[in-house]
């Protein structure tokens, strides 16, 4: 098994002087290919901070973060951006589809940024929308889709680049419980296909459906448990 994410003694602080906040405080984790991990913890425990690091959106204050074998502190903005594009598929709580853009181009956009020719990018995007059952909605813009449909498009966008890792921050947070369940079914299915998933949630029922749960408290990992296979 190859390691997708590795964190060694990672610290992330915000602010300075007396108002300094330690959002992460000496975190060590390894996430291997094919894992389905839920990161749980109370509000303010450091979940989003951790997700920003794993998602190559930010660099640690101290310690080592490796994503897909790359040490983040050694990368400039350009390389960090490329790494995000290549290795990470993001799924956000409020979907974050691009405005004034149809579903097809929303899904194709990460490929556009990678330099894939438009025609080929749209072909791949269409395949991915088909896989997620959204093919008939490919001309719809986000305003014309329901929450669950928007999240499916967002998941298609995350998958289209064939990333090492799907990173989802509260993906069911804005959905009703039934639609939320469907999205979780989708994630479980994807994980069975071998796709690595890291999911952030404070909903323990959702967390139970992952195969591993990491619990954060005040920036520290207080629990890390796996389902016995």
């Amino acid at each position, binding site marked *: 098994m190859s390691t997708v994410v590795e964190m060694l003694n990672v610290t992330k602080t915000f602010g300075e002087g007396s108002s300094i906040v330690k959002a992460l405080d000496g975190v060590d984790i390894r996430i291997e290919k094919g894992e389905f991990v839920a990161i749980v913890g109370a509000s303010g425990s450091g979940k989003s901070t951790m997700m*920003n690091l794993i*998602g190559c*959106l*930010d660099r640690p204050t101290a310690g080592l973060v490796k994503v897909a074998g790359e040490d983040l502190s050694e990368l400039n*903005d*350009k390389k960090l*951006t*490329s790494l*995000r*594009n*290549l290795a990470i598929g*993001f799924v*956000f709580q409020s979907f*974050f*589809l*691009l*405005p*004034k853009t149809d579903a097809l181009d929303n899904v194709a*956009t*990460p490929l*556009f*940024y*990678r*330099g894939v020719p*438009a025609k080929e990018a749209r072909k791949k995007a269409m395949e991915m929308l088909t896989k997620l059952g959204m093919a008939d909605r490919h001309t719809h813009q986000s305003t014309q889709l329901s929450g669950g449909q928007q999240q499916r498009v967002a998941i298609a*966008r995350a998958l289209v*680049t064939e990333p090492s890792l799907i990173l989802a921050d509260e993906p069911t947070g804005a959905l009703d419980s039934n639609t939320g369940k469907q999205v979780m079914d989708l994630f479980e299915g994807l994980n069975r296909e071998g796709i690595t998933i890291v999911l952030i949630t404070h909903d323990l029922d959702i967390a139970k459906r992952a195969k591993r749960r990491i619990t954060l408290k005040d920036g520290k990992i207080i629990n890390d448990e796996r389902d016995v296979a």
Partner: protein
Amino acid sequence: MNILIAARLAFSRIIATKTRSGLTMLGIIIGVMSLIALVSVAQGATSGIQDQFKGLGARNLNITGTTNQSLTTDDVKEIEKLSGIEIVTETVSGRVTLSSNEASTRAQIIGVDQNYKTVVDPDIFVGSFLPDVTNASDARLIVLSTTLASDLKLDAYSIGSSIAVGSTEFTIVGILDDADGFGTRGTAYIPLETAFKYVAVPPYLSSITVQTTSEEIVPEVTTNLTALLKARHNITGEREADFVITDASQLLDAIGTVQQFLSLLLGGIASISLVVGGIGIMNIMLVSVRERTREIGIRRAIGAQQSQILTQFLIEAIVLSLVGGIIGVIIGEVVAYFLAQLGQWNFALSPTMILASLGFSMFVGVVFGVWPARTASKLKPVEALRFE
């Protein structure tokens, strides 16, 4: 991301926000429109004058006195002896009151000799120019410009009728066509000898026009004329001559300079409004970047490089200014066309001017688009994503 996709994105964005885009472009549209219209006015108006001067003849030299008593009929006799001279014509002028039965007006009256017709070749609207009256002692004949004729409430049937010059009756023999005569509006012509009797004091002339045998010898003849007249007028050393010699080329040069100056002046004024239009674009783009912070964050998260965000916003600014420029060119040319009809000069599309305007508006887009685009590209992904 290739430029095409960025351009398409910019276009669909501009179409999606029609009203705002239109208002943003308005500054550029007005700027380019006034640039095109004003410069075409400057060029159209002056090129009309230029054409008229060209018609005046490149072989002609005009000598005017700087005082009322600089040039005399004796000067003319000596000038005629110089080599390279085809024909010489002399004029005197004065201001008089002309009265018809119905109206009266002050006018410039010019006394011309029999050579005037050959040298200047005036265009006749109706009747004829003054006949050769060299030997008649008191030929009270007059030719009026159209403007003057209408000021006096005369028409084409007035040929042969009489009007009063001061208190003397003159017979109208012709009316000039003012349309392409330069400086003839409001002017009347009478024979030279007659003029010496009623409006001017002999032997003093107001101008002498010399036609040379060829265009090439104009500078040489000018030199000789200057020497001759200086000697005759006892002007030595550094003393300033009491006459001025001009030829068509000088006039054409002068008009060319005026044309350039006018174009620059009017173009400069219009350019200022174009720059103001650019600031409008910058303003809206900055607002747009703020509003779209979240979108920028999403794009950065899914792999847009800073340079790709920069390109997207820069192209949007350029498309705004360029589309504004194109609309401005179209409206500007239409306005220029109607102004040309109004001012009676030739309307011509100038490709250089059109390309320059479009180039300038694009340049404005780049200059004023860079700052907002840079602002957008420098947003930190994490913070942009969290932006509400």
